[in-house]
């Protein structure tokens, strides 16, 4: 499966051939394939493209763990994890369509260029039929575009921007993770419930596409419930110290601060905000509140005690008590000694969903797989009944509203689920203005 192995063998053969005295080696072009990288042997290769360097390297490492676990389960090793709770029973633990699952890994560096280079090498060199992974929307959209051109399926990892299944949606790309709109729709009612409908919000927003779509979504959802958006300040992605953005907040008349930041930005801005004493101030006769719409437990650890009591949303959390989640946490925890992150969960689901779609379609052909995934209803993967919408390849499922725990019992026990927002509440029409502008196009099988 690795080219290194191949090439070493190639070198050995070179010697053997030369030794045999064959003057003219055989030339032949490889047989035409029905689609890109049609697996012809007894194995099938998947490409796991995750950040292994740069700020999201830890999330990438967790995704990789989940992928390796999923491959184990697909090949019939280990306890089977969520394969046992998955509503579709096509997967038998004998690989996919009888072919043993192998994988290659690559480093996206959280840069769209590097991510595409890495994905291309998986497709061109290693013969991967499916690319999956990633920890940011820019990378997801770039790789999704590449997979569309190359004719392989892309199963997005952690990507939260509306655009991934909005204006940049592609026929070969699928997203299990939730998005900015869903965060807003799930979070707003809880916010209104807790903090009242008469609130003035001050937004700090990371100045790039994901930040903007997230801010737009949250502002729309909260304004619909009576909140007023006092100000929206864009902060540079490269900022490390947010003091000059946070210092004026207290005197602006706002009584809620919304941090549309992710990763390192979120850790730093939240740490700064708490330092400036925002959490224990009174404004307009109300307690000042901070909201972090998209939580990542892994990153929240970097903010330490500052997350206590702060509301946000997340795709999945390991403390969920349903059968699927428990099976996954057990399987992952026994393998690695700590619970999985939401990034690990979403990529594990994506891998199972892809494998299952291949089984149901009876082929690895991207068009067949895409058809099997479109409109697919399933359950037992930790998020309750879920629907893969055909129109935009977005999964619809319950969204979790979480809160930083006041008395964590361990270093992993940072968040507690305060509400499971039902799926109906976060659904939207495929042509919703926040998602309009793009087109899926036709599925592309490559060759």
């Amino acid at each position, binding site marked *: 499966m690795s080219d290194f192995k191949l090439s070493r063998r190639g070198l050995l*053969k070179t010697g053997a051939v030369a030794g045999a005295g064959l003057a003219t080696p055989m030339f032949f*072009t490889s047989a035409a394939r029905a689609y890109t990288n049609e697996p012809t042997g007894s194995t099938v290769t998947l490409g796991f493209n995750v950040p292994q360097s740069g700020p999201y390297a830890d999330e990438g490492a967790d995704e990789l763990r989940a992928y390796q676990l999923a491959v184990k389960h697909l090949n019939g090793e280990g306890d089977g994890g969520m394969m046992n709770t998955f509503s579709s029973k096509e997967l038998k633990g004998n690989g996919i369509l009888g072919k043993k699952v192998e994988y290659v890994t690559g480093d996206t560096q959280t*840069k769209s260029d590097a991510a595409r280079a890495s994905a291309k*090498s998986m497709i061109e060199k290693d013969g991967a039929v499916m690319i999956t992974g990633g920890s940011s929307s820019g990378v997801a959209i770039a790789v999704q575009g*590449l997979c569309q051109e190359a004719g392989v399926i892309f199963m997005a990892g952690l990507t939260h921007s509306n655009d991934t299944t909005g204006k940049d949606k592609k026929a070969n790309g699928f997203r299990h993770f939730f998005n900015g709109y869903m965060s807003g729709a799930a979070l707003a009612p809880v916010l209104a419930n807790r903090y009242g409908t008469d609130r003035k919000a001050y937004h700090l927003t990371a100045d790039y596409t994901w930040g903007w779509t997230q801010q737009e979504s949250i502002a729309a959802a909260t304004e619909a419930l009576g909140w007023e958006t006092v100000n929206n300040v864009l902060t540079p992605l490269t900022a490390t110290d947010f003091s000059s953005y946070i210092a004026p907040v207290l005197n602006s008349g706002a009584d809620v601060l919304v941090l549309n930041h992710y990763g390192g930005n979120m850790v730093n801005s939240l740490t700064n905000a708490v330092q400036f004493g925002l959490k224990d101030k009174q404004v307009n006769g109300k307690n000042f509140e901070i909201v972090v719409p998209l939580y990542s437990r892994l990153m929240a650890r970097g903010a330490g005690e500052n997350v206590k009591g702060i509301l946000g949303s997340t795709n999945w959390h390991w403390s969920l008590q349903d059968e699927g989640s428990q099976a996954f946490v057990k399987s992952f925890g026994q393998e690695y000694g700590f619970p999985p992150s939401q990034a690990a969960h979403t990529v594990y689901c994506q891998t199972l969903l892809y494998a299952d779609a291949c089984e149901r379609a009876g082929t690895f052909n991207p068009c067949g797989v895409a058809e099997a995934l479109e409109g697919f209803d399933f359950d037992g993967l930790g998020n309750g009944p879920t629907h893969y919408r055909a129109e935009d390849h977005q999964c619809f499922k319950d969204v979790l509203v979480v809160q930083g725990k006041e008395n964590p019992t361990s270093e992993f026990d940072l968040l507690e689920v305060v509400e499971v927002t039902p799926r109906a509440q976060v659904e939207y029409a495929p042509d919703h203005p926040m998602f309009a502008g793009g087109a899926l196009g036709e599925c592309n099988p490559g060759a």
Partner: protein
Amino acid sequence: MTNAIFPSKANDRLLMIFFIIVVLAGPIILAPFGAGYPDLLQRFAIFGIFAIGFNILFGLTGYLSFGHAAFLGVGSYSAVWMLKLLSMNVIPAIILGVVISGLFALVIGYVSLRRSGIYFSILTLAFAQMSYNLAYSVFTPITNGETGLQILLDDPRVLDGGTKPGELPLTNLFGIPMNATQKVEFLGMTLQFNFGFYFCAVILILAFYLSLRIFRSPFGLMLRAVKTNQNRLNYTGVNTRPYTLAAFVISGMYAGLAGSLLASMDPLAGAERMQWTASGEVVLMVILGGAGTLLGPVLGAGFIKYFENIFSKINDNVLHSWFAFMPDGLENVMVTLVHPFVGKGWHLTLGLLFMAIVIFLPGGLMEGFNRIWRKITSKRETATSDTSSDAASTPAE
């Protein structure tokens, strides 16, 4: 020394022929190293062009620009816009990419070259960082920010007429798509002869030839004089600014060419192409290969890209298959030992190699080759004259 700067025409011809053969045979030579697939081959050629261009400025004049990635980025953006608006044929894209980045380099060069030494470096760095930061945020309507500029289904492409609905067109050269690849099974390896790579390879050869001509020309000599002692030149009444500015613009256009080729092979332009780390990368490529040499920059570019693309993909599975011939216990020990240096640790290996090369081979990779070459030739006891690249590495100081 004059002999070294202007070696015989015959030597140059040999060098050129050698270069052409090696580049064209790239897919065959690199296949045993796992690097013989189209995308990486294209990258070798493209970053080779980028480094050759940078070397014309840095290697000859000694002006260390820390913002060359900006020109690469501008070239990419212009090229993708051409692909979006005009045609998927790469020729207009490349022309516009080179022209725009040339203009951009003219402006930045005009301002930055008013200073020298580290002040010049910081000025170029500042311009590039401003471009990067703005491309990521405020200029999103032009650059599509974080996501990067991509071609879309509903782009006008006025020259192309009707493409199939629902299908993204491919970049091409008068109808031949860049991703056309002929796969040949050869001695157990799959050789991939890719049209896009050969397109880049031809341009690389032309770019190399042009840089050779510049190195040998009176203009090149003038640039070397700037590096050696600019003050003395100024005292003798020579205004060096036009020469350095010309070198700056030429190397900016090389960068733009590389950027538009990147976009032509893979129609995407991302802002991080302009980040200071990308500017730093080309500096490292040139120093690593050997600044001021002809072949060095190409070698350095290949070296760094190889690590980025091949070493980062080696995971424990691959390691186990490498050491599979060993007994189990030893195999595991070997995997544990090698593990920190590959896969997610590829940066570590790269950093260690940077240090090792600069400590032991002060002239970069080219010096290593020259040492080996000298050993071979001295054994034969033939008095071959220096190869052009060796001598060019250390202009008299």
